[in-house]
């Protein structure tokens, strides 16, 4: 009996999580794949299997390739800028002074806000006619900048989205980097100083390699979160101007609920899921290879 309990215990422990995960993640994902091979409109009780028709249609759809381009453009920019800001903030706010503790909390607050609220705030702040940013540029005499339509001009709209995301999540990234920074032994810095290394050399040769596990985690979280980006562009630009900020997730939402083509929406979702899995694996594998263990 004792032996039996010992063998089954680990399985019993993971069983609740397994059932939960399976029923709300794994089964819907499988169901989604099945629906992607149908012409279900999302409302009817019946539908037909139409083989790979939805996938073939998607591959021919210019909007899909545009959405892929838009999504990856945003993903790359967000990863680069957010990680830079995150590391910078973490390094600046590393010491446990009262001011730094306050600033850490301040930078973390945006990530607690609802993304729809953040989207609405920025949609007003960046409005060309009555936005705070354009008014600011206008008041300091920078007319050229004051006349930029941040949300309505395709050249700037995706940047507006990127900066909104970076504003919201840089504090969160910096928190993960802070944790990694705390783990770096002070002796390494001391010996480095004795060797006459400059601050930049200290950062590049010690800090950066030793926070690479946090970088891997941060990049992965940002990658997954941004590839399925929906809410910020939905509120901020509604996918516009002229589809310049229409992401894959917006496209699948549009197909499913606007055009009542749940089959095609499911095919879009399946492709999105595959993209996330492939890129997460590649990125994690690559970054893990570069990690330095103490």
């Amino acid at each position, binding site marked *: 009996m004792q032996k*039996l309990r010992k*063998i*089954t215990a680990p*399985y019993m422990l993971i*069983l609740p999580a*397994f*059932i939960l995960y*399976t*029923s709300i993640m*794994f*089964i*819907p994902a*499988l*169901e989604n794949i099945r629906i992607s*091979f*149908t*012409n279900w*409109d*999302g*409302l*009817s*009780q*019946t*539908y*037909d*299997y*139409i*083989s790979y*028709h939805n996938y073939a249609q998607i591959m021919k759809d210019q*909007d899909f390739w545009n959405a892929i381009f838009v999504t990856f453009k945003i993903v790359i920019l967000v990863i680069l800028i957010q990680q830079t800001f995150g590391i910078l903030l973490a390094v600046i706010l590393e010491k446990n002074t009262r001011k730094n503790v306050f600033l850490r909390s301040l930078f973390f607050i945006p990530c607690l806000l609802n993304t729809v609220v953040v989207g609405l705030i920025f*949609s007003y702040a*960046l*409005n*060309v*006619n*009555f936005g705070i940013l354009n008014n600011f540029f206008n008041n300091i005499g920078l007319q050229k900048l004051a*006349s930029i*339509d*941040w*949300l*309505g*001009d*395709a050249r700037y*709209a995706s940047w507006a989205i990127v900066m909104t995301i970076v504003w919201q999540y840089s504090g969160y990234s910096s928190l993960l980097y802070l944790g990694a920074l705390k783990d770096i032994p002070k002796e390494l810095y001391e010996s480095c100083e004795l060797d006459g290394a400059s601050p930049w050399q200290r950062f590049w040769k010690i800090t950066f390699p030793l926070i690479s596990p946090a970088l891997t985690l941060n990049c992965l979280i940002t990658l997954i979160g941004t590839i399925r980006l929906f809410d910020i562009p939905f509120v901020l*630009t*509604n996918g*516009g*101007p*002229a*589809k310049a900020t229409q992401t894959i997730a917006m496209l699948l*939402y*549009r197909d*499913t*609920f*606007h*055009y*009542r083509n*749940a089959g095609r929406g499911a095919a879009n979702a399946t492709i999105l899921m595959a993209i996330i899995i492939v890129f997460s694996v590649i990125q994690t594998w690559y970054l893990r290879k570069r990690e330095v263990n103490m």
Partner: protein
Amino acid sequence: MLKRTAILLMVIILLVAFVGCNTKDATTDKPTDAPKETTKATDNTTKDTMDNPEYINFMTPWELPQEILDKFKDETGIEVKQDVVPNSGQDYRQARNARMAAGSELDVIGADGADVPDFASNGTVVELTDEPWMSNFTPATLEKFSAISQSPGKQFWTVYEALTVGVWYNKDMFAEYNIEKPTTYDEFLAACDTLKANGITPLVQGGKDQWPLDQEFSMFMNPLQMYNVNFFPDLMSGKVKFTDPDIVKLAERLQILYPSNGYYVAGILSTSYDQAWQLMLQKKAAMWFMGSWGSEVMVKSNVEADFEIGAFGIPSSNAGQDGFTPHFLSRNFGVLATSEKIDAGKQFLGFMAQPDIAKIYADNGMTISTVDGVVSETMIAGDDWKAIFARTPVPEPNILDPNGKVYTTPEFGKQKLGLLALIAAGDLTTEEFCTELQKSIDLDIENWK
């Protein structure tokens, strides 16, 4: 052995959960290369309805006055739980469809656009033809009800206000620069140029929401449908093409959207529908292409304009032609066939068709009522809108194929607004616009076949 049993147990649980999640009816599982027509979802004629419901769920993009809902409750004891999601063509449509797909408890819904004939023909909403209160609507409205459902002699929807498109304008600005109310496209363009010459930006639009750009589009589309009721069938049969020289010429009207022309307030594609009115209030523009329903956003802004507001019909006609305007009934309400409270839903729609209630509705929404004998006294620029309604209506376009089936042009519908946005962004000429429109129609023709 035990390990195997545990794994087997997990697999069984997984399978049970998987089967349990799949609640769909049996389907044709034979793979085919192309979509097939879906069979009718439900038979609404055999649906049982609840006798004395305490409430009905009403989902709409067009908020009804609470006064009406209270009166209905006082009279019938049925509470109407109103769930308002604005933006009928997008946010609302997506939210409603998501709720319908999820099987949420919904009884009465609002709908417009392609959903109207679609829901009528596929049995999503119940038929209302024989309801005694239908005779409260004007005969023209009843005829229109049938036309929009593409179901001659039958009614599936009710509409309590007649709508048309037009241009709201700042009367004070027009008076200051001695501009007469334009009646033709040329006069409209001259008015824009006069305003521009005097340092006033002529127009504003809420292109962020995309659908408002449809108002400008109607300047191009109205004449096509006015003089050819079979425009869509002709388009689908290839008899007419958007790339035909006379149509390309007509599309030049959309050049007012070119950013280089400076006719619109900056930020046309980042300005939302309600923000467009804010810019009018701030006198940043003199005119706003918007339908008679624009009064709604004016009231909701809670700011009284410090100028006189007027309206004129969409400038679709050329010099020498009489003005015409599309009349449409786009705020449709219907009772879902899946509802367990069909009778209560019908009762509510009938209650709304009572003249005293229709008067409250019309006064509140400041609209022209479709109920016989009801006249709104509060409509903003009411006399102007009555004059617009008096213009020759653009005939209801024929959208039936030779077999009597409703043509669907999803690709055209999908691309049209995006292409208009490209014009407004300065990335597309009107000629290219016509070429792209034709490509979308060609795709629709291919799919239709």
